[in-house]
């Protein structure tokens, strides 16, 4: 490796360490966080330091939080649940709106819709809204339980740049299973592998992670999860 390459690598490692240590100012922290999302090597450096320096918290005494805190969290979860359901219905009406043939939509979206329309009739379709950061819908997915496939449509531009987006099915109490690569710009229909068919139900979560081009080299998500959401019955 050239000297410049080595220097760059050391500089990157230092910035990652400084981010984890917490010595950076607000703007530098935001810059580092954006880099975590798009630079896998940098994200690995951050993970290295989080794991190693994390041991320092053993020197910080535990302090019992007040009893009422759990109640507060539970109450917020309740509200969050309502919001999620409302968000889901919003996206469902969005789907229906599309299905009625809104002409201003991109042809690719319409194609996906026709597909959804076809699968919506026979059984109870499963849908998921995959939220990205700050609760915005990143993707909307609809599963055809009978046909063993699902269609996933980007709801927002995510700016994946030189990365691949990989879709994962996460059954409760299980590891993520890859469903394959998806496109940040257009709807994709994915056939669910036979051995996972029984896991596609309203207990499962769909997640999208940012991976090296061509997908995760390990069979498990290696990059940050940029959007996720639980499947729910329509």
């Amino acid at each position, binding site marked *: 490796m050239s000297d410049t390459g080595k220097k760059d690598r050391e500089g990157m490692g230092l910035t990652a360490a400084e981010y984890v240590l917490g010595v950076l100012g607000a703007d530098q922290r935001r810059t580092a966080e954006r880099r975590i999302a798009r630079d896998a090597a940098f994200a690995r450096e951050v993970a290295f330091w989080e794991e190693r320096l994390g041991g320092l918290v*053993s020197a910080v005494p535990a302090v019992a939080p007040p009893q009422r805190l759990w109640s507060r969290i539970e109450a917020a979860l309740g509200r969050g649940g309502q919001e999620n359901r409302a968000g889901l219905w919003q996206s469902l009406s969005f789907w229906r709106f599309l299905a009625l043939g809104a002409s201003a939509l991109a042809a690719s979206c319409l194609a996906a819709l026709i597909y959804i329309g076809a699968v919506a009739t026979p059984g109870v379709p499963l849908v998921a809204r995959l939220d990205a950061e700050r609760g915005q819908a990143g993707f909307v997915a609809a599963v055809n339980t009978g046909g063993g496939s699902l269609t996933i449509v980007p709801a927002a531009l995510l700016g994946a740049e030189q990365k691949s987006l990989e879709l994962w099915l996460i059954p409760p109490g299980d590891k993520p299973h890859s469903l394959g690569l998806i496109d940040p710009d257009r709807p994709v229909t994915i056939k669910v592998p036979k051995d996972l068919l029984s896991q596609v139900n309203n207990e499962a979560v769909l997640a999208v992670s940012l991976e090296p081009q061509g997908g995760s080299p390990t069979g498990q998500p290696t990059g940050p999860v940029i959007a996720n959401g639980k499947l729910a019955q329509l």
Partner: protein
Amino acid sequence: MDAETRRRQLAAALRRVAGGDRAALRLVYDETAAKLFGVSLRILNDRSEAEDVLQEVYLNVWRKAAGFDESRASPITWLVAIARNRAIDRVRSGGVARLSAPIEAADDVPDPAPIAAETLESAQENRRLYSCLEELEIRQSAAIRAAFMDGLTYEDLAERAGVPLGTMKSWIRRGLAKLRACLER
């Protein structure tokens, strides 16, 4: 219960949280809230701010548990990182009055006994970290510890230690480089 069993149980609970299981979130909370509250309180120096952070942390865990990857991080590391990031961001946003008095002269900080009291972190990993910290100059390791535990910027640390900013940056950066070399040995 040993650290490895606890780690596995916490990881399993997080997978259940990812599947939308509220009882599992309660388990994660019961196991980790006191530690995360301590960590947030140390950074924020204000109980009500620390409570707000803790609430944000567990709501975040509820929404983002699917993003936890056991092969990349231990559950407690992942949780501590969320809590520290939230607490530090709150401090950086300027809404929190920081303790202005210097806490202790960094050199006087007694060596904590990290291993015996803790079961959450892996004791072996920790022994390695602390033995590597011992190889650094005292001022370097004291600055790194203070930065991590108190969530201070270079500027705060320089002011607290009464040294120029450039000196503090150099202590920490050299310390981090040496620490990395030692941890990778």
